């Protein structure tokens, strides 16, 4: 989840938002914004199920692209559940079973907390410039604001989304809308964002909406950012497996 969030930040505020920027520069600048030294954020995820909606509150600590720790705060069933990402490994701790379990294999394709995001979405957080070849497809005006349309095609194997298309706001340099595709060209997910505001010299969205297009009648998942701080010192001990049980 954090990493998806980070990926969207890749399209953030750049030095001089010029129409003269090459698409490679846009992606590079986006990656520079993405990979903040560290961040701590509190957020709510509203999962709109087919019968009802659930709100899950969590706090996240992230350092670079390798380390992330998430603690779920509510509702009671999820409270106390923790997740630790260290490099390409992901562990989860559930107080109900008092077990630390490594998530691997096909479970990585499963939904996180019933949302429209998978564990793989959380794991794939390398800079987009390393993963995709970008092509500027054109320019379009949406709600009176100029957007670039950028097509990103994978240049490494094994990605969950070998192709993605982003509509990038020319002022905010954020992907206001993105479509994520399979290798076959089938649309797998979409995401949009709104509530853009300035946080520590960055344009930053306060709401993301994800939709898994493979889920029939999916009403999507909203992700609301309550608080976020960038470049905070986070002790190494925050990312120890021992902390999962505490």
């Amino acid at each position: 989840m954090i990493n998806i969030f980070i990926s969207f930040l890749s399209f953030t505020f750049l030095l001089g938002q010029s129409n003269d920027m090459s698409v490679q520069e846009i992606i590079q600048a986006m990656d520079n914004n993405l990979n903040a030294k560290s961040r701590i954020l509190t957020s709510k995820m509203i999962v709109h199920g087919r019968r009802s909606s659930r709100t899950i509150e969590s706090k996240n600590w992230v350092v670079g692209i390798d380390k992330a720790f998430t603690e779920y705060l509510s509702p009671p069933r999820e409270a106390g559940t923790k997740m630790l990402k260290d490099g390409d490994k992901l562990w989860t701790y559930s107080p109900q079973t008092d077990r630390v379990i490594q998530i691997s294999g096909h479970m990585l394709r499963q939904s996180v907390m019933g949302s429209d995001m998978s564990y793989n979405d959380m794991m794939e957080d390398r800079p987009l410039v390393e993963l995709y070849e970008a092509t500027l497809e054109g320019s379009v005006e949406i709600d009176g604001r100029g957007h670039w349309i950028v097509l990103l095609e994978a240049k490494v194997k094994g990605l969950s989304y070998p192709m993605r298309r982003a509509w990038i706001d020319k002022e905010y340099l954020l992907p206001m809308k993105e479509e994520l595709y399979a290798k076959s060209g089938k649309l797998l997910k979409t995401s949009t964002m709104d509530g853009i505001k300035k946080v520590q010299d960055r344009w930053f969205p306060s709401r993301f909406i994800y939709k898994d297009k493979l889920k029939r009648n999916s009403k999507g998942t909203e992700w609301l950012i309550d608080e976020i701080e960038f470049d905070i010192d986070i002790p190494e001990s925050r990312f120890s497996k021992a902390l999962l049980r505490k």
Partner: protein
Amino acid sequence: MIKFLTKGLLRDRSRSLFPVLVITLTVAMVIFAIGFMKGTMNSLILDTAVILTGHERVVTRAYSEESQLMPNDLALMDVNQMIENLEQEYPGFFWSPRITFAGLLDVPDDKGETKAQGPVIAFGIDFLSHGSRQVEIWELERSLVNGKLPKNTDDALISSKMANQLNIKTGESVTFIGSTMDNAFTTYNFNVSGTFNLRKGQTDKQMMLVDLSGARLALDMENAASAIFGFTHSLYYDDEAAVALRTDYNNTKSDSLNIFSPFMLALRDGNQMGTMVDMSEAMMAIMGGIFLVVVMVVLWNMGLMNGLRRYGEVGLRLAMGESKGQVYRSMISEAVIIGLAGTVIGTGIGLALTYYVQENGIDYTKGMEALSNSSMVMPNIFYAQVTPDLFYIGFIPGVLATVLGTMLAGLAIYKREMAQLFKELET
């Protein structure tokens, strides 16, 4: 007249004992063969019904469209009330909730870290309720390899194939990792109370059986279920009745505009079972038909031979002045009496034999074990089945064929001329 003919038959055992014996044996054989074939076909269908479809299955409309994905977010709610209503309105069936779910099974080492992990398909079945027949229909006592049946909410039975693959031992704790009915992440510890082998090929390769209450706790499905399974009390599947019940239920209880409305599926509606049911019925009809025809030819021939054997007697009766019609009718009446007597006794013996095999079965376990590595889903014990048609099917060969044979033989009576008759009597 009938009394007179009956007395004659009883006094002349050559005309009654042997024909009645033959008809009795033949009718008993027909009834047992048809009952056994029906029982065997039903056993094949029952295996699939127990694991996948039930004789009837109630799910939500949305679940029925995505059932392959086991979408428990589309599960039935307020299940206890639904079952109460079903039991009242359809008392010919017993109804039981079922939760079908999938995920990962995680086996911890001494430190609680993951030792082994593998995909699992789990069934939450109502084992612990008073009067539940689930242990019986799953034949779990016979399928248990070691350990014991679930006694507590958290107990689980693991397939012996999966236990070997993940090195799970009876008494160990394993963690299920999956999603609740709200699609929330869930982990739940089950105690392995035993291992089982259904001896149905690869069917149970990744199977775990838990009590419904444990599944409900693990998946946060209080008073909810993926489906409600219905089985006839005799466990015999009557396709026509099942389809009629399903149609009635869906017409009266299901709202086609509400995706969460309950929707009933008959066994033939799922997993290509319709083709299997139709094929088994066609095979039954062909095999039963051929058998019936062969038996009818035998009894028809017997009637014919009996008629021809009495050629001289008939000639004498005609010579004494009895009309051809009277002789012909008396022979047919005798055939009817013999046919009825043999059929009634044969039906009684056939039904008794069929009922015995219905209750006790014929155990082919050892033979089937040799096939256990194949992917065929085969029952190990074959049961016969007493069905309503067995009470009258014996009358077709027993009475009809015998009488037809006699009628054909009796036609010779009308061809005989009086002049020729006296010549025959002189010799």
